């Protein structure tokens, strides 16, 4: 064991059986807290006939009712007191020191309350990630991102400070100004969405700046989109910047539960801070073996104002069989977040994985970084249109590229697509989370 690898060698190399004991102890504590302090959780568990004394073994965790985003919305709905958090809040309102909210992609946003201690917890969890990715006090971190009511990159900033790094908030600057500031200050690391990482490199090149040669960024942490765990997208980012790119996953309600270490073997779940369960999306049967995809259910152990217990996130993940060379005992996920378990991505009766489409598109060097998937319905038939941009120098190769695209998409997704080629730079660009999947089918109720 090389202890300089770890933010906390005690937790990160805890033997698996001890880690399981720790998880059970922490689960009981947060369950008891929520049962006693939150009207929402008290009712959820009482209605199911459960109370803290019923948790006798690790296996009993699976008897605890799951919670979904829609339930949080109801618990907070219609101006319920204490406003705006409603029945889910587990501390007096005056203990809340930070407000954030979900983006509302799947409906009304969820309001997230944090105490100062909760925020320390989120920051601490992120510190594990940054340290594992090789961030040290000598790093000067640039954040090309405007912080706001969403959680994105707030904890990256605070964790960077916690590690002793110098953090440069590049929020209100435009992309060109950010690149110049990065160059002027010789920033060594940055955090952004994969879309923006690729877009920034494109902008830099137009300014006559070649990021690997003219900038000093050698580590990039990406979040907010699945690109960091998609090999073809990661390669594009690493080539464009001459930097190592590491994926990091989290959400407003949960916190920062998974990250890659510098060995890039897959996402480590921080199992000392979070319990990640995988279950069969149809039967609910627990999945412990590697290589079998299922639905993620997550518990955050020490976030107290608004506990997150057995949250059915509806993201699809699978365990990796590998043991990472870093020596951590935290389990690895294979391929990051692989899609959604709800109907949002069911097309022609097949579960469509947007990450698989991205992998195909980004693996074809004649195409730009941008693409758009539009799903429509004519009668009873779903149609998928994939819009891509061909790079100007390959305009004459359209037919050959179309053949490769259609074949690869069929292999990777089992679906057929209408392919549309668009002029380079004509598809919409985003500075934050991209919405490259547009489902325009009428909603069914």
């Amino acid at each position: 064991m090389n202890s300089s690898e770890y933010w906390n060698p005690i937790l990160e190399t805890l033997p698996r059986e001890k880690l399981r004991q720790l998880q059970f102890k922490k689960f009981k504590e947060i369950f008891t807290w929520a049962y006693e302090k939150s009207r929402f959780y008290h009712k959820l568990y009482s209605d199911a006939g459960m109370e803290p004394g019923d948790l006798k073994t690790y296996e009993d965790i699976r008897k605890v009712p799951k919670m979904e985003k829609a339930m949080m919305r109801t618990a907070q709905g219609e101006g319920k007191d204490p406003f705006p958090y409603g029945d889910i809040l587990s501390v007096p309102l005056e203990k809340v020191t930070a407000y954030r909210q979900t983006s509302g992609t799947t409906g009304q946003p969820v309001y997230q309350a944090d105490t100062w201690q909760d925020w320390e917890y989120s920051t601490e969890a992120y510190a594990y990630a940054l340290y594992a990715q090789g961030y040290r006090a000598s790093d000067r971190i640039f954040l090309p991102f405007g912080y706001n009511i969403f959680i994105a990159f707030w904890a990256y900033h605070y964790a960077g400070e916690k590690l002793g790094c110098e953090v440069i908030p590049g929020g209100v600057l435009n992309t060109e100004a950010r690149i110049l500031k990065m160059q002027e200050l010789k920033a060594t690391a940055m955090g952004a969405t994969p879309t923006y990482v690729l877009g920034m490199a494109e902008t830099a090149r137009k300014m006559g700046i070649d990021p690997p040669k003219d900038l000093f960024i050698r580590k990039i942490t990406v979040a907010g989109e699945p690109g960091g765990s998609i090999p073809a997208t990661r390669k594009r980012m690493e080539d464009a910047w001459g930097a190592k790119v590491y994926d990091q996953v989290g959400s407003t309600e949960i916190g920062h539960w998974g990250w890659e270490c510098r060995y890039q073997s897959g996402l480590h779940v921080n199992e000392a801070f979070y319990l990640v369960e995988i279950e069969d999306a149809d039967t609910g049967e627990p999945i412990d073996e590697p290589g079998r995809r299922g639905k993620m259910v997550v518990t955050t152990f020490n976030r107290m104002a608004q506990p997150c217990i057995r949250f059915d996130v509806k993201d699809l993940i699978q365990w990796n069989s590998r043991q990472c060379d870093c020596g951590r005992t935290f389990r690895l996920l294979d391929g990051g977040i692989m899609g959604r378990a709800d109907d949002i991505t069911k097309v022609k009766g097949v579960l469509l994985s947007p990450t698989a489409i991205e992998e195909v598109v980004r693996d074809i060097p004649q195409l730009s970084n941008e693409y758009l998937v539009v799903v429509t319905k004519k009668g009873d038939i779903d149609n998928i249109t994939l819009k891509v941009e061909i790079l100007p120098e390959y305009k004459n190769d359209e037919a050959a590229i179309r053949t490769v695209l259609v074949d690869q998409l069929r292999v990777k997704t089992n679906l057929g697509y209408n392919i549309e080629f668009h002029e380079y730079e004509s598809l919409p660009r985003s500075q934050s989370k991209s919405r490259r999947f547009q489902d325009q089918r009428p909603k069914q109720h």
Partner: protein
Amino acid sequence: MAENYDIKGMVEKIKALRKNAEELKKISGGIPAVESNADRILANVKMLEIDISDAAEILDE
């Protein structure tokens, strides 16, 4: 460096930090500057408990 750590020793020091910060609050007479800064210290003490003390307890079992 880290191989030389003394878990039991750290747990004792963390307990002392908590005790001191709580006592500081108690004798502050409600001075906001003391109470608020003590609360922030206690939030960090909690992180030390999560990082070290909770694991130590499991390792002892």
